[in-house]
C-alpha cells in the first residue's frame, strides 16, 4: 500500500475536491436531520448523504486508488448499488410506520387512507 503523498497533483486536486463536496453534502444532510421541523421533512435529509454525498466520496476513492495502484479500481460501485437498493426499504418502513401512527392518532396534517375524496362518494 503506497502513501497519499505519492499521489500526483493532477489527481490529488479532483480527489480533494470530490471528497470535500461529498463530505459537505453529507454534513448538510446531517444538519437537516437536526434542524428540519416535522418528521416527514426530516425523512428527506439523510437522502442527500446517500445519493450525491455517497457518489462523490466513492468517485474520489475510485480515482485515488486507481491512480495510486495504477490499475482500475471500481469495486466501490458495489457500495453505491447496494446502498441505493437497500435505502428505500428502510425509508419506506420508517415513513409508513409514522403515517400509520399519525393516522391512528387522528393527526390533521396527515392525509387519510388512499382513494382521494373527489373520486369516491363517501
Amino acid at each position: 500500500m503506497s502513501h497519499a503523498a505519492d499521489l500526483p497533483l493532477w489527481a490529488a486536486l479532483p480527489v480533494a475536491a470530490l471528497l470535500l463536496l461529498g463530505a459537505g453534502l453529507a454534513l448538510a444532510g446531517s444538519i437537516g436531520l437536526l434542524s428540519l421541523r416535522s418528521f416527514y421533512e426530516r425523512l428527506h435529509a439523510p437522502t442527500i448523504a446517500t445519493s450525491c454525498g455517497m457518489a462523490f466520496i466513492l468517485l474520489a476513492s475510485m480515482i485515488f486508488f486507481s491512480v495510486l495502484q495504477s490499475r482500475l479500481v471500481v469495486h466501490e460501485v458495489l457500495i453505491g448499488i447496494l446502498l441505493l437498493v437497500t435505502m428505500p426499504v428502510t425509508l419506506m418502513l420508517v415513513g409508513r410506520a409514522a403515517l400509520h401512527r399519525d393516522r391512528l392518532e387522528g393527526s390533521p396534517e396527515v392525509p387519510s387512507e388512499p382513494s382521494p375524496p373527489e373520486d369516491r362518494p363517501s
Partner: protein
Amino acid sequence: MKALLPHPLLSAGLLIMWLLMQQTVKPGPALVGAVVAVLGGWAFALLRPDTVRVRRLGAILRLARHVAVDVIRSNLGVAQVILFRRKDRRSGFVRIQLALRDPQALAVLAVILTATPGTAWLEFDSEEGWLLLHVLDLIDEASWARIVQERYEEPLMEIFQ
C-alpha cells in the same frame, strides 16, 4: 442452457459482482464466482418463476439521464433548503395516480423517488394505483404529479411492459 441458467442476466450480474469484490480474474476465484452465479440463478428461479423482460435500451438511457439530472438538482435544492432557511417554503403530501402496475417497475420507481432527495415515497395503493409522496419543497401539487408521470413513469412503462 435454460436449465443451467434460468436467469442469465442475474447470473451474469452475480459473477461480475463476485469478480469486482475479489478484484481479480484469476481462474480460481472466477470458478467459485461462476458456481455462485449458477446457484444464485437457481435460487432465484425457486422464488419467482416469471422472468422480467427488459427492453428498449433507448428508454433506459433516457430514464437514467433524467434521474441523474434530477438527483443532482434536488441534492442542491435540499441542501439549499437546509442551509438557507426560507420563510415561505412549505412541505406537504402529494397524491399521484399511476398507471404502472408491474412490481419490478414499481420497485425501480421507488428507488428513484427515494434516491432523489426532496421526495419520499410513503404509501402505494396497488389496487387503484395511488401513490402518496411527501415533498420537502412543494410549489404546486400538479407539477409534481406531472414530473413523476412524464419523466419516470412513461419510460418505465416502455421498459417493462
